[in-house]
């Protein structure tokens, strides 16, 4: 860690430079598709980073994190449909709705541990999925088209692809900076202590429940932001974004990149989604290659890509 050069730092710096310069490359090469792809990657990286806060740092393995993508997305879509197009209204509503959902679900599910916690968060997310499917006024199963992207009084134009990309990237980096502050704060140390040894933390005087719940709410709120971005990106929101496989994708990104590391989820999202894209171009059976590949990395590379790089540093 203290070394000036380390493989994990170098890879992180390289990746950040790449993300920052990507629109330039896209413009110069005329490859518009890559900008579209990476806008989506950056948004899902934000979702994965938020999941990492509870799963990696907090030891709370939630299998229902995609619910917030839907809640944030529907907040934007429904308000747009009802004629409220301002992002200054839509986005705070998206965040607040996610926070409230997290508060309720967290209060109920954090009483359980381990597999039960995984199952109960999954069950709640599936419930959200069915509720969204039942919203007949807002497209039901078919989803809801967002005809106009969130308006920010001319400050930033979300229909401009480059501007939108940079907005997403700024949100991602902002959230990561926030997570960095949080995990090194008093609160963050308590949450990580609870992951490490709850009995000990209680013996030195920390009530576990309230710290975990607050962390759960922060994480859900962050992911709600990703949901608002995603709906703007696709001009569409449907129950499918909340489906359990989406939650699974987010978990894989976090584990692949390295749980409990600041940039692990970003690397995980980039690798996972780029790989998915490349393999799906080569063969329609891409999942057959992707699955075992991920299994190998998760099984043999404990700590994910960040873990592997860390071991490289230690020689």
């Amino acid at each position: 860690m203290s070394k000036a050069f380390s493989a994990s730092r170098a890879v992180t710096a390289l990746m950040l430079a790449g993300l920052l310069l990507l629109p330039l490359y896209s413009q110069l090469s005329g490859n518009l598709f890559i900008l579209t792809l990476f806008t989506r990657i950056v948004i899902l990286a934000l979702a994965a980073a938020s999941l990492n806060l509870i799963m990696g740092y907090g030891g709370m393995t939630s299998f229902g994190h995609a619910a917030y993508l839907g809640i944030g997305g529907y907040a934007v879509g429904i308000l747009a449909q009802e004629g409220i197009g301002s992002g200054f209204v839509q986005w705070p509503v998206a965040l607040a709705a996610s926070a409230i959902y997290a508060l309720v679900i967290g209060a109920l599910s954090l009483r359980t541990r381990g597999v039960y916690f995984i199952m109960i968060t999954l069950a709640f997310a599936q419930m959200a999925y069915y509720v969204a499917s039942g919203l007949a006024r807002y497209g039901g199963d078919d989803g809801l088209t967002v005809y106009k992207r969130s308006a920010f009084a001319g400050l930033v134009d979300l229909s401009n692809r480059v501007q939108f990309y940079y907005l997403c990237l700024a949100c991602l980096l902002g959230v990561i900076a926030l997570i960095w502050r949080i995990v090194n704060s008093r609160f963050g140390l308590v949450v990580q202590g609870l992951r490490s040894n709850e009995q000990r933390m209680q013996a030195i005087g920390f009530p576990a429940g309230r710290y975990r719940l607050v962390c759960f709410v922060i994480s859900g709120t962050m992911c709600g932001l990703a949901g608002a971005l995603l709906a703007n990106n696709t001009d569409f929101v449907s129950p499918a974004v909340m489906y359990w496989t989406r939650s699974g994708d987010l978990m894989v990104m976090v584990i692949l990149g390295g749980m409990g590391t600041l940039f692990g989820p970003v690397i995980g999202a980039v690798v996972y989604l780029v790989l998915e894209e490349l393999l799906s171009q080569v063969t329609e059976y891409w999942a057959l290659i992707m699955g075992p590949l991920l299994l190998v990395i998760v099984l043999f590379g404990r700590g994910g890509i960040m873990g592997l790089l860390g071991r490289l540093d230690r020689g």
Partner: protein
Amino acid sequence: MAEPLLRVEGLVRRFGGIVATDHVSLDVAQGELHAIIGPNGAGKTTLISQLTGHLPPNAGSISLGGLDITYLPAHRRCALGLARSFQITSLLLDFTAADNVALAAQAHAGTSFRFFADARRERGLREAAHAALDRVGLSHRADIVVSRLSHGERRELELAVALASRPKILLLDEPMAGLGATESQRMVKLLQELRKEVSIVLVEHDMEAVFALADRISVLVYGRLIASGDPAAIRQNEEVRRAYLGDQHVVTRHG
């Protein structure tokens, strides 16, 4: 007699058919070192866990400084000045020694709902941590991750963590367990220092240490207290000899 610091009355805890704590009553005076001895499975750890709030009793009451704490959760009791060490070392393995102790100090220094400032740069907490580590002779290992500490160092760290919360009463569950001879001696010396500052309940199998340290000894057998008194009285007690000490163990030292 003044109100004892800790008072336990008629405490009962069952596990299925076993009565692990069988109507135990005892008290600990201010400044006293009260040792609890008894054979394996006598219910010593079970008793400590009820005192700390890790295990609810089936009946009876516990009070600290006159306040009924029988049904308070562990973290509240800790806030009231009760700290424990675990028989089986229980630490944050992926944190440094200093972090472990600083967190204990943090729990007693204002709110932990602070989200932005770097907690490891908080002067007060770091100083408290280093002072506690210094007490147990671990300050040179402050920045080592606990999983790399030796067993003996971890036992000392357990004690430092308990001290960092500035407790009124320390509940120590076999602090000498698994220590070598020299490490044990160091621990006894440390406890001799600490007892001047804080009341201690000491569960320990090392009889030499117990008889050297204790003001009072209570003997637990099958969950029942069969005797309680000063070391001399316990040494003389026939029932204790028969039930527990065994003649070869008795009278290791006089006075």
